[in-house]
């Protein structure tokens, strides 16, 4: 091999390196750019309609055509709905992920079938959960209500939460479980006292991801939760939600009301942001005991 050949080779490799670096930088720019553009658009277009009354009052003149009042009904409705659905989803999700990670063996068929099912459910479009929730609703003789909405959104959140939690719990080293077993702990004690504590920040994130999906989803609540100008006072009343508020406001022919849709979108985004930050802060507090 001559030195010049080696030189050329080295130059080519350096060139490759530069090209790929540029590509990666460009991709990152796209990601960050999208975020800025979306948030910017919402705020820019929503700003004229952004008044304090947006978050302190219910709509005046109907949610469809009303140009006054606010969307307090949708904010409260969305929070009720997503919180209820998230609690319900945790109740089903946690046992499932603890079972497939602590009780089932690594090569268990049941565990892989469960994971496969969760993956499929994850991919099911939310309108299908809405339709399915609608059928359940009819079956139990419910009308469009907060409860029916909670059920549909819980179905939507369940696979997302489970799969995210599963990824976290899978990382727990087997030796940590063995340490607990060797002290005479049962699997349940190990799951609740060791696994859950070790994974707490990750589990919080899983819950949060699910909550975020739940509060932002329009299709699953379209038939199930209904829409109303009032703030629900019982599980059997219909409930307004932010995504649907945006949907209805955008659908009007009046530019003033359309502006209100962007303001609603900004409120929804900020709401999710606040919840993320709170959860992140909580997660940090629980990392101190984690075993690396």
């Amino acid at each position, binding site marked *: 091999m001559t030195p010049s050949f080696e030189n050329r080779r080295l130059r080519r490799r350096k060139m490759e390196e530069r090209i790929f670096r540029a590509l990666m930088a460009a991709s990152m720019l796209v990601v960050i750019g999208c975020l800025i553009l979306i948030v910017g658009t919402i705020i820019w277009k929503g700003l004229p309609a952004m008044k304090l009354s947006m978050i302190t009052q219910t709509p005046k003149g109907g949610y469809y055509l009303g140009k006054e009042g606010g969307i307090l009904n949708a904010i409260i409705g969305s929070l009720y709905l997503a919180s209820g659905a998230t609690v319900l989803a945790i109740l089903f999700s946690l046992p499932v992920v603890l079972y497939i990670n602590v009780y089932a*063996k*690594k*090569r268990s068929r049941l565990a892989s079938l469960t994971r496969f099912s969760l993956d499929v459910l994850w991919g099911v479009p939310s309108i299908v959960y809405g339709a399915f929730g609608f059928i359940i609703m009819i079956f139990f003789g419910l009308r469009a209500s907060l409860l029916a909405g909670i059920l549909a959104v819980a179905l939507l959140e369940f696979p997302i939460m489970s799969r995210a939690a599963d990824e976290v719990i899978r990382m727990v*080293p087997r*030796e*940590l*479980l*063995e*340490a*607990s*077993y*060797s*002290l*005479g*702990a*049962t699997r349940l*004690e190990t799951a609740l*006292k*060791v696994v859950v*504590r*070790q994974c707490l920040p990750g589990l919080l994130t899983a819950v949060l991801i699910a909550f975020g999906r739940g509060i932002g989803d329009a299709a699953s609540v379209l038939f199930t939760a209904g829409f109303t100008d009032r703030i629900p006072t019982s599980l059997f009343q219909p409930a307004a939600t932010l995504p649907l508020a945006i949907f209805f406001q955008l659908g009007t022919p009046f530019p003033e009301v359309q502006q209100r849709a962007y303001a609603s979108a900004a409120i929804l985004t900020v709401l999710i942001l606040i919840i993320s930050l709170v959860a992140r802060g909580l997660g940090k507090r629980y990392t*101190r*005991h*984690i*075993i*690396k």
Partner: protein
Amino acid sequence: MEARPHISVQNLSVYFDEQLVLKDVSVDIPDHKITVIIGPSGCGKTTLLKSLNRLLDPLDGVRIGGRVLVDGIDIYDPRTEVTEVRKKMGLLSQRPQALPMSIYDNVAYGPRIHNHIDKKRLDETVEHYLRVAGLWEEVKDRLDDPAARLSVGQQQRLCLARGLAVGPEIILGDEPTSALDPQSSQNVERRLIELKAEYTVIVVTHILRQAKRIADYIAFLYLGELVEHGPAAEVFANPRDPRTRAYLTGEIS
């Protein structure tokens, strides 16, 4: 062997899928002595140790034949309660595995599970076993700190305290010093020698010098087979099997 066997392994065979990891191992482990299992890596030392407190159970594709008697009770008998078996033994693993909680809660983990005792008794128990493990002076002012903040050597002694707090009769050590610096290793070895007055100690190691320092009895495993076992002095001075001799002189490792 003059001492009464505390653990009696009888014709124990272990398969991982189709692979035979332990071949028909029979050995009596005497009370209140340190038995050291030696052998090259991959010879089944850890498998033998884990079979003693049924830590092989949760693994995939494991089949176990033969019997393991602890105090005359077959631990693989379906009627035997697995948590009771494990309660009798404290385990030190290769890397210390502190639980994701405070130093205090680590030691209190076992007692809290097994007997409901009041806060005052629990405090005493925690202090007592931290002292036995030689860790009390170093941690008495920061019992609420996360166990993860201790050094690896301290964590291994914490694991010892945690294991002892359950009230076992047997201490199992799976290369308990392999992740530790020389000084911490020495510290752990010294604890083990002290503890044999009250406990039966079984240690797996691949460090021959360590085996010579602490062993009363030696069991030599090679390719899943128990080649030789007996009093340490005898085995080291006069190995009967050529394979043992080859291992002791460093020809096979």
